[in-house]
C-alpha cells in the first residue's frame, strides 16, 4: 500500500477535502449537487449556510440529520438574504469576522419570491456571499416557470413556451453596485472554483449565478448533465463572466461558438421549436456576444 498515488489533474490536498456536503435525497443526475459540493469544499468549516425553500433545502435536511457539516439554516422563501444579514451581524458582534455567511438558493427563491430581500441586502452591501443555483424552473414544486426560465422553453405552466426573456439576474445585481458578481456552470468546475475563491476574498455583497441543469425539467437523459451544461456554455447560451467593481470581464470565450440548435436539440423542453425560432434565438445570442467588451 504505502503512499497514495499522485493525482494528475487535482492537487493532492484536494483529495481530502471533498465533500462536507453529503447527499440525501436528490434526483439522479442532479445539477445542484456539484454546485453545493464545490462550495462546501472550498469554504470548508468557516461557513454558515442559509437556504430558502428549494430542492437544495429538501436534500440538505431531514428529521434526523443535516447534510452540511457546517451551521445550516433552512429559511422561508421570501427572506433568505434578510436572515443572512442578521446572521452576519450576529457573527460580527461576537467577533467572528472570518466566518462566511452564504445563501444557497434556487432561481425561484432568488429572482421571484426572494427578490426584494435580495435587492435590499445588495443595496445595503451586506457582507454575504449569495449563490443562486439556476435550473430555470421551480422544480421542487413540480416545475412551474420562473422569471429565470429561458424564452420559448416549455414548462408545465407555459405549455406553449415561456413568452418572456430570461431575467438577466447577474447584471441586475451588478447594477446595485456590489463589489463582485460572477456567473459559472457546473461543467466548468475549475472556473467555478476560481470564482468562489475570488468571491471569498472580497468583502461586501458577492453574487454568484451557477447554471445547474435539471434532467427532469429540461428533458434530457440524466447521465447527460455535464454534457448539456457544457453545450450551454459552448453555444454561448450561457456566458461565463465576472463583474468586479462594475468592470465586466469574460472569463471563458469559446474559440468557435457551436450553433445554438445543438444545445436546443439536447433537450425536450425545446423540442417544439421550429428552425426559424432557433435562428431567432441564435441571433439573440450573437447580439449579446457582440455587446460584450
Amino acid at each position: 500500500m504505502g503512499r497514495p498515488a499522485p493525482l494528475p489533474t487535482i492537487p493532492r490536498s484536494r483529495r481530502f477535502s471533498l465533500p462536507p456536503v453529503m447527499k440525501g435525497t436528490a434526483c439522479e443526475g442532479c445539477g445542484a449537487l456539484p454546485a453545493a459540493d464545490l462550495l462546501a469544499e472550498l469554504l470548508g468549516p468557516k461557513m454558515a449556510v442559509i437556504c430558502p425553500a428549494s430542492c437544495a433545502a429538501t436534500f440538505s435536511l431531514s428529521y434526523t440529520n443535516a447534510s452540511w457539516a457546517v451551521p445550516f439554516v433552512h429559511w422561508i422563501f421570501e427572506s433568505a438574504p434578510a436572515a443572512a444579514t442578521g446572521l452576519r451581524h450576529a457573527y460580527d458582534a461576537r467577533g467572528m469576522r472570518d466566518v462566511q455567511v452564504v445563501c444557497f438558493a434556487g432561481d425561484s427563491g432568488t429572482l421571484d419570491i426572494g427578490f426584494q430581500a435580495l435587492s435590499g441586502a445588495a443595496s445595503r452591501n451586506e457582507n454575504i456571499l449569495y449563490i443562486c443555483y439556476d435550473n430555470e424552473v421551480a422544480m421542487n414544486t413540480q416545475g412551474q416557470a420562473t422569471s429565470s426560465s429561458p424564452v420559448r422553453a416549455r414548462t408545465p405552466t407555459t405549455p406553449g413556451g415561456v413568452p418572456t426573456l430570461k431575467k438577466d439576474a447577474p447584471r441586475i445585481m451588478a447594477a446595485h453596485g456590489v463589489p463582485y458578481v460572477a456567473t459559472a456552470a457546473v461543467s466548468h468546475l475549475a472556473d467555478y472554483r476560481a470564482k468562489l475563491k475570488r468571491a471569498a476574498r472580497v468583502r461586501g455583497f458577492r453574487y454568484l449565478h451557477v447554471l445547474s441543469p435539471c434532467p427532469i425539467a429540461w428533458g434530457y437523459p440524466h447521465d447527460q448533465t455535464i454534457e448539456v451544461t457544457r453545450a450551454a456554455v459552448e453555444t454561448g447560451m450561457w456566458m461565463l463572466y465576472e463583474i468586479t467593481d462594475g468592470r465586466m470581464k469574460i472569463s471563458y470565450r469559446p474559440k468557435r461558438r457551436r450553433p445554438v440548435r445543438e444545445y436546443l436539440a439536447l433537450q425536450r423542453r425545446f423540442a417544439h421549436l421550429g428552425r426559424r425560432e432557433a435562428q431567432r434565438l441564435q441571433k439573440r445570442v450573437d447580439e449579446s456576444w457582440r455587446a460584450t467588451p
Partner: protein
Amino acid sequence: MTGSVEVVYRGIFQKHLGQRITRGIVLAAVKEGKVGISFGRYGDSPERNGIPAKSFAVVADNEEELQAHLARYEPSNNDVTVAVDDTLCKGVESWAWYGLQPINKLTRAGGTVLATSMQSPEELLKDCHRKDAEWNLAVIKAIPSFSGLWVYKDDHTDVRILGAIARLAPHVVKLESIEAAIRQEWGDELKVTSARKAYERVEARKVRPDEGNSEKPYEFQLPKWWEMKEGLVIPGIPVQQEVEGWNGGYRPGRNPTFKKFSTRTMRPVVDFEICTKCTLCWLQCPDSCFDVTPSGHYDANMEACCGCGVCEAVCPVENCITMVNEAAFDDNASQFEMYEKEKDTYKTWLKGKIEDKVVTFRSHGFRYRGQYEEELAQMAAGGQLHSGVQSINEEPGAGPG
C-alpha cells in the same frame, strides 16, 4: 368488504403509469357498484427521479367501509402489491426516511406481489425479502416500462397489470368490469385484448416463509422528541469516515439515514485495469459516491450511488465505466475489494455483467416522437422482443435465435 392495491413505482419516470393503474382499478370497481379511491402517498411528494414512490387504490362496498379504511397513512393489508419495475423487489426506500421497506411488507398474508420483469419468479425471489406469512409472487413477463415525464409510453403495461389484478384478486375487481373501464377510459379494443391476455397468462407462485432473501432490511431509529436538541437544532454529518487499513484512502461522509440501495435502476461497473485515475468520475459524480482507494482507484460505493450514469458519460477511457441493469446484481458489495482479492475472477465477473447489458437494455423515458419505434427495433435486434409488432418480427435477424 374492502380491498386494496398498492402500486410501487419509480418516482417521476413511472408516475403516470402508477396513476393510470390505480385509477383503472377504481373505475372498474365503480362499474360493479362499489366505491373506491385512488391516491398517492403524501410522503413521496415532491417526487424525486428514480426514488420509489407509491400509489394506492382502495375499493369498498359502501362509503363507511371506505372511510374506515382511509383513516391511516397507507393501507397496510394489501391484496396485491404491484412492482412496475422489477428492481423494486429489492426494497422500497421512500425519501421520507423510513428505512428500507421490503416489497411484501404491506402485502397481507396470502396476498400477491405482482412484478413486470424479464426474470423468472425464482430469480426475482432472490431479491425479495422474507415474510413471516405465506404469500404469492406473480410475474408478467415484460420489459419494465419507463414511461417518462415528458412523453407517456403507451406499451399497454397499465392494462396488462389491470387484467392480472382481476385474476389475482377477483374480489377487488372482476375482468368484465376492467374491460368496461378500459373501454370507457381509453376506448381501445386492443387494450382490452391486452388486459384479457394478461388475465389468462399470469401465474402466481406460492412463497413459503423460509424462501426469499434472508438479509435483514436496512433500518434506523428516529430520535424521539425529547432526544432532540433545543431550538430544532439537528447535528451535521462528519465530513469523513475513517476506513480501517485504508492508508491514504478516503471515504466521504454519507447519510446515515438514507441509503440509495433501492433508488438505482442501473449500476456502474468499473474496469480497474484500464482506469487511468483521471479523477473525472469522482469529481463529476453528483452524489460523491466514489471512494478513493489507497491505490488511487475510484470505487463506486453502492450505499450512495443512485445510478445516474454521469460517470459513464464523463469517463474518457473507452469501456472503463459501464452502466449495467441493476437486476443483474444480488448484493451491494464493493467492486474494488473483489478486484483486490481475485483479479481474474473479477475480470470474468465484469465481462459477464457487461454482456448482460446487451440483453437487458433499459431506457428512462422518451425525448422525442418516434423513439418508441426505435427502441422496439433495438430490442428486436437484441433478441428481447418476439411478438406484437409485425413489421419488426418480419425483419431478418429479429426475434430470439
